[in-house]
């Protein structure tokens, strides 16, 4: 069979692999062996999986392949950040960013091609949703790059809203932890607060959670993030308060927009909202995007904002802006490659 027509085993979970071999009349533990070869040993050649037995290897090789997504482009920043671009279909690209720092090497992965959520400050939003990534396409952003073995941390902060693709995100977390042996403590999923997915993430995994907040005031947050009309932040807080964050980290992401959400009132309200929680707040510099009504707060004022939050007992960090020379902000690169929108004749407006 032509290789492209074969089913891709890459990205399947342990349970899925056990079921697959069982359906082939093999004992289920063969699924565990396949899982270990593919992820723990990073062997993608089925014939090299010597403890599987020749007939199973032949059968699997005839029907299946193990294919990690291809990289179509890589850009390296002067600060060492690397941006990878992957073609997912003929017209959709996703990106990941490898961010080396002295004490950690982080990979920022994407979970969707484009996104439906229409946040005002986001470049990915401008693509709309093009495609959902499979667990294999998420894991492949890790396994397929030359720095893979050096990576210490995974953050789900690339293109897309992870909890609008919860099932595949949960499978990929299983792949990272059970397969590649990364600790849940080193994985962070960032979300704008899609409640059903957040409940599952909190119940079914032990990974860290980062919530995109960007304004403590409901009406203002609505203008920045339409999700606020659907899942108000107060409901997100209510849910978070039911969980223990002593063994996993909870953080809030806060991009500072000049003259918009960087006032003393904002700082005070953040303290009021977040102080009851065991959490940290990450203050982020805004990467400017074309034709946006927003601009970034100058560095000095970000530091003043941070100092106020700290003086009131919040753990507040300013995240360094990385890879600006290669447009490492979420979605900038792939949106430059492609802005594909629905055809006019399919629209209802």
């Amino acid at each position, binding site marked *: 069979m032509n290789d492209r027509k074969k089913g891709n085993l890459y990205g399947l979970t342990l349970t899925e692999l056990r079921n697959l071999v069982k359906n082939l009349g093999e004992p289920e533990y063969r699924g565990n062996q396949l899982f270990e070869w593919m992820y723990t040993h990073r062997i993608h050649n089925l014939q090299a999986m010597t403890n599987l037995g020749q007939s199973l290897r032949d059968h699997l090789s005839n029907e299946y392949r193990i294919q990690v997504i291809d990289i179509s482009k890589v850009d390296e920043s002067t600060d060492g950040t690397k941006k990878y671009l992957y073609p997912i279909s003929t017209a959709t690209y996703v990106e990941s960013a490898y961010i080396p720092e002295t004490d950690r090497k982080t990979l920022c992965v994407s979970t969707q091609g484009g996104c*439906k*959520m*229409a946040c*005002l400050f986001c470049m990915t*939003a*401008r693509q*709309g*949703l093009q495609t959902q990534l499979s667990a294999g396409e998420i894991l492949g952003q890790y396994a397929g790059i030359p720095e893979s073995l050096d990576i210490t941390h995974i953050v789900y902060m690339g293109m897309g809203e992870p909890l*609008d693709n919860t099932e595949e995100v949960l499978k990929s977390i299983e792949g990272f932890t059970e397969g590649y042996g990364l600790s849940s403590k080193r994985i962070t999923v960032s979300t704008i607060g899609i*409640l*059903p997915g957040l409940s599952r993430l909190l119940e079914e995994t032990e990974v860290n959670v980062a919530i995109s907040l960007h304004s403590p005031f*409901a009406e*203002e947050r*609505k*203008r*920045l993030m*339409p*999700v*606020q*009309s*659907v*899942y*108000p932040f107060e*409901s997100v807080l209510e849910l978070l308060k039911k969980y223990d964050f002593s063994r996993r980290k909870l953080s809030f992401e806060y991009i500072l927009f000049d003259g918009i959400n960087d006032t003393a009132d904002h700082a005070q309200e953040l303290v009021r909202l977040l102080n009851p929680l065991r959490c940290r707040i990450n203050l982020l510099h805004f990467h400017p995007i074309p*034709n946006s*009504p*927003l601009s970034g707060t100058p560095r000095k004022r970000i530091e003043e904002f941070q100092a106020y939050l700290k003086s009131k007992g919040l753990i507040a960090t300013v995240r360094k802006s990385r890879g600006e020379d290669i447009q490492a902000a979420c979605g900038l690169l792939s949106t430059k490659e492609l802005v594909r*929108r*629905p055809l006019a*004749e399919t*629209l*209802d*407006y």
Partner: protein
Amino acid sequence: MIFVRSQVLSSDRWGLAGWRLVLDWSLPYVPGQWVQLRLPGLDDPRMYSIANPPGQRAITILYTLLAEGRLTPRLSLLKPGDIIEVAGPGGAFEAEKGSNLWIAGGTGIAPFLSMQKLIESKWYGPNSRPTLLQSNKLEDDLYGSEIFSDLNERNLLKYYPFVTQGTNSGPRITEWLDAQDRSFFKAFERIMICGSTSMILDLRDLLLGRGVDFHRIVSEVYF
């Protein structure tokens, strides 16, 4: 979210592409809010804006059937007396007093249908009847247009229907808005948009390009 069992009171077609599901459900809600629906045994709910004003001891859901969708093909098979599970209400796509421009695409008209009574009671203020731009592909699918036309005739609403396909297609909302001068946009304290992601993105871009402050734009995406 806690799901409660609710009986289907009626289920029928609405226009050419739409369906209307009426459920026995009497919890209080604010116009613009959603409920989650799921079928017993299918644990993956979907959200729907409530498409009728409060106070009727029943809620109306307006939806379009997506052939490959998980829930809507099953919703379309429901008959009076069948049981469906409902959670909610939730969300905060709520009307505000003052001068409002509302823009709806397809089933995105649902929250504005639930604001009918507010319009009739002149809740928005004495000199600020809302302006509603409603669009869909076909004229038959301008859900509730007879209600809005009536409100228009009674000077309670300024109503502009738009159709993008078929014999009655005219300018698109985007073209129409683009042709307005700045004073048109200045007249509104608040612009509420409801519909698909691409509609929200295109209209928001257009409005920002016409000098509307983003603080005046609130949208609900049917993601």
